[in-house]
């Protein structure tokens, strides 16, 4: 087996050195009757064979790059520069563990420090952690953190929160014995969330751009939340939007969480992605996840270490702020490299291209009979009301080779009132030909 260096001779010599006659003697603590004779699995396979097997599975899927592609709703198709994937595959990044020995992991640590700074600056917040699993789990952690800060147990979720994010928060809260007030889905972007905030609210969780694409003015929500002693948790699923819209930090958010996949990371059918988590300096000790901090070494040279780890599970155990251990280090690295390549100048331009493409697409699609746009404002994603069931339209368009967006019913099943809604995203990867093809096909399907 190509991955196992020991030869038969080695094994015999080692067993002799250990002083046991056979390998089974090393497994003597496993009760005999429970020892497995063999597994009902195929035998070892060479590289070519594995490539064939997995290649066949991969070939049954339709890659986003091969079709006009407008699917978003929490994960976005963007172009990632070639150097990003090259650099994250450097052995020293790819095959290193969590930087528990800082003297020989300064590479990972300095990257995390750069990542934390980029995320803090992008969100307009004072501190960011070294990443979470993804946007949805970061949101659930933000709610738990708000409970710790406010010593209250009731979270209010806006109707524009991604339905999966809502489900993750609801699951965690139900299990932890906390309460959640989830407002009804808000495709029109018109709900009155202020009315839902009261003196028992720990936090109000608002996504902007919302699941339906609306840009939400967070400032009045922050004001009402703060007046009631609650926190504003601002959520985003499209981090690229922060290149063009006012950051949550400037609008009064106390915790900002979101999905960072769009920068540096491929779609990969939903994961691994990278959760971003930022907050105010005064809450740093209530924050979940790893933090990297600057210090000096014995020669007085600048260096970085994981710090404030007494918040974490390996020290606080049942009193930890979270049970999180693993972060999303390699995805955070990809994020940081891509963001470094973009810089402020590149990010702004990329965000404008996304917005321009989406604006143009929306204008084209509403030309189709019976189609209305539900958004006054949006970034690179918006919601259409179709004259018939959106899931069927999406299937019909897929049959024509166009992946048109996400029918809301896929995430909000059992809600006939939402059945005709389609969430459509357009990014820099779409060409004018893609948009024209989509608009023409939609005309046909709806005709």
């Amino acid at each position: 087996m190509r991955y196992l260096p020991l030869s038969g001779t080695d094994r015999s010599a080692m067993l002799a050195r250990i002083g046991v006659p056979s390998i089974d003697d090393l497994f003597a603590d496993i009760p005999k009757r429970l020892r497995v004779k063999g597994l009902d699995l195929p035998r070892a396979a060479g590289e070519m064979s594995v490539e064939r097997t997995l290649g066949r599975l991969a070939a049954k899927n339709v890659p986003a790059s091969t079709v006009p592609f407008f699917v978003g709703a929490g994960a976005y198709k963007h172009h990632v520069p070639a150097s990003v994937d090259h650099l994250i595959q450097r052995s020293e990044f790819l095959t290193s563990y969590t930087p528990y020995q800082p003297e020989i992991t300064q590479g990972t640590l300095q990257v995390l420090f750069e990542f934390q700074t980029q995320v803090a600056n992008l969100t307009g917040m004072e501190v960011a952690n070294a990443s979470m699993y993804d946007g949805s789990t970061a949101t659930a952690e933000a709610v738990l953190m708000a409970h710790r800060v406010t010593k209250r147990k009731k979270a209010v979720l806006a109707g524009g929160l991604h339905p999966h994010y809502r489900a993750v928060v609801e699951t965690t809260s139900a299990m932890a014995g906390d309460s959640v007030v989830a407002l009804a889905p808000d495709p029109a972007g018109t709900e009155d969330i202020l009315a839902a905030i009261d003196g028992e609210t720990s936090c109000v969780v608002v996504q902007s751009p919302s699941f339906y694409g609306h840009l939400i003015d967070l400032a009045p929500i922050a004001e009402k939340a703060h007046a009631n002693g609650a926190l504003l948790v601002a959520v985003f699923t499209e981090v690229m939007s922060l290149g063009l819209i006012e950051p949550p930090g400037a609008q009064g958010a106390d915790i900002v969480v979101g999905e960072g996949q769009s920068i540096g990371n491929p779609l990969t059918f939903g994961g691994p992605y990278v959760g971003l988590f930022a907050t105010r300096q005064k809450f740093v000790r209530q924050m979940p996840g790893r933090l990297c901090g600057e210090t000096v070494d014995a020669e007085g040279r600048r260096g970085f270490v994981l710090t404030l780890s007494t918040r974490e599970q390996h020290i606080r155990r049942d009193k930890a702020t979270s049970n999180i251990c693993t972060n999303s280090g390699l995805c955070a690295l990809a994020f940081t490299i891509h963001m470094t390549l973009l810089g402020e100048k590149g990010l702004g331009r990329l965000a404008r291209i996304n917005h321009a493409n989406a604006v143009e697409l929306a204008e084209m699609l509403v030309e189709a009979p019976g189609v209305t746009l539900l958004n006054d404002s949006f970034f690179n994603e918006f919601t259409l009301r179709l004259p018939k069931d959106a899931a069927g339209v999406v299937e019909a368009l897929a049959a024509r080779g166009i992946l048109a967006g996400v029918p809301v019913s896929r995430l909000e099943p059992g809600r006939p009132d939402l059945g005709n809604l389609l969430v459509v995203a357009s990014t820099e990867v779409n060409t004018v030909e893609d948009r024209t093809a989509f608009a023409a096909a939609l005309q046909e399907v709806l005709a």
Partner: protein
Amino acid sequence: MTMNTQGRPTAPGEAAVTATDTFTGNRALQIEEALLFEIGRYDVTGVDLDEPETFTPRLGKLARKTPIDLPGLSEPEAVRHYVRLSQKNYSIDSGLYPLGSCTMKHNPRLNEKMARLPGFADVHPLQPLSTVAGAVDLMAELGRWLLEMTGMTSVALSPKAGAHGELCGMMAIKAAIEAKGEPRNIVLVPESAHGTNPATAALIGFKVVTVPARADGTVDPEAVKALLSPQVAAIMLTNPNTCGLFERDVVEIAAAVHEAGAYFYCDGANFNAIVGKAKVGELGVDAMHINLHKTFSTPHGGGGPGAGPVVFSERLAAFAPLPFVRVTADGPVLVENEVALEGGETPFGRMVAFHGQMGMFVRALSYMLSHGGDGLRQASEDAVLNANYVRVGLRDLMSQPSGDRTCMHEVLFDDHFLDGTGITTLDFAKAMIDEGYHPMTMYFPLVVHGAMLIEPTESESKASLDLFVATLRDLVLKAKAGDTARFLEAPRFAPRRRLDETRAARQPKLKWEKPEPWSEAAE
């Protein structure tokens, strides 16, 4: 106060300083690298894009007014910056990485290639299901392998890491208890457990009661029985445990736990020792997470991403969270929401957006297919063989808290062999760095004084282990001979000497700030 004796020195102390005398501060291949924020410029970008044609924005009043403060680098600068940073890292590709409980094994590059096939890397989680049949097939196939290896009934693939898998398993247990309407709120956790275990149980409202360990670090079934009651919801046990030992009495413990109406959660962090040797389902386990980034070699990536699928026994199978893959006669079906449920499916909720760590699923399945059932078993045998080979090579010089006995895939030493030398486990570990090794896991498990937990994995050759053992033997002899400075000053040859963790924690500096003169100049 609670006494915690893990308070080893966290500031560099009085080590002699050997300043670099080069102009640059560089030391040949070790090149000092400034922060991105010190070398980047605001008008530089490494991505060529055309400004869009004039259009009417739809941003309402929320267009960005404040600058972001994100300097950029051109591509050559960015490549050099991150290559230089990478060179400051130790990695499994460059050397033995014996971190106990972390299973730092070789990461085959075939797996990276497979994960990057456009059919996996470039598919969206919410594409029409008709366009992702291969992805669902792959999830089903991965599930089949995991269930066969563990002898369990169902699998939840979506958890994103080991601790997340633990949370998933304990949520299923909580849901099962609530479905029966029982008032169980206590979870038993051995004192040798990973910190994630009590943290997970506490997170969802369980009260943690610690089970004392026997002198050899294993769990005494009588101690468990004494704590069992109608209030006990579950026991969380790591097997093989964190001392590197297989819990001999696991079947008796499981039976007692089940007898008391409670569930058995197994922390699968150490699964690498028993793949193809024992099936946890037959040991009485009700739920176990599997760290794909440990046992099945998806790369650790400097701390993640991981993946933590959870396998369930028949008693918990129905509670597996959404989404899951239902295997039918017509092929696998991805069940994403409540509306799609069939009879007997009662998921406790949802752990993540979308369907889990697909990129890790591909890598893990690629690893499994490469090994086959026979190779997976051989890998476990070699991992255990290697650990015992290291144990036997060091046992006369280093001290084993559990006595001289066979271990599983990792071997545990304590610091008694350093008594009287003035050298701590930390100093010993840092001296290993100078010898070109990543240190073992230290000060864990907590039940052992100055613990050193060594897990060589099956990826090491005999020659590699021989040199490692010879190196550690030499260090022990030097420690005992009074060559103290070698240890107290270590590491001397790493990119950095010991770092001042006290300073980092007392005055946290968690992001780059513009130096004062900079901001004055800007105004």
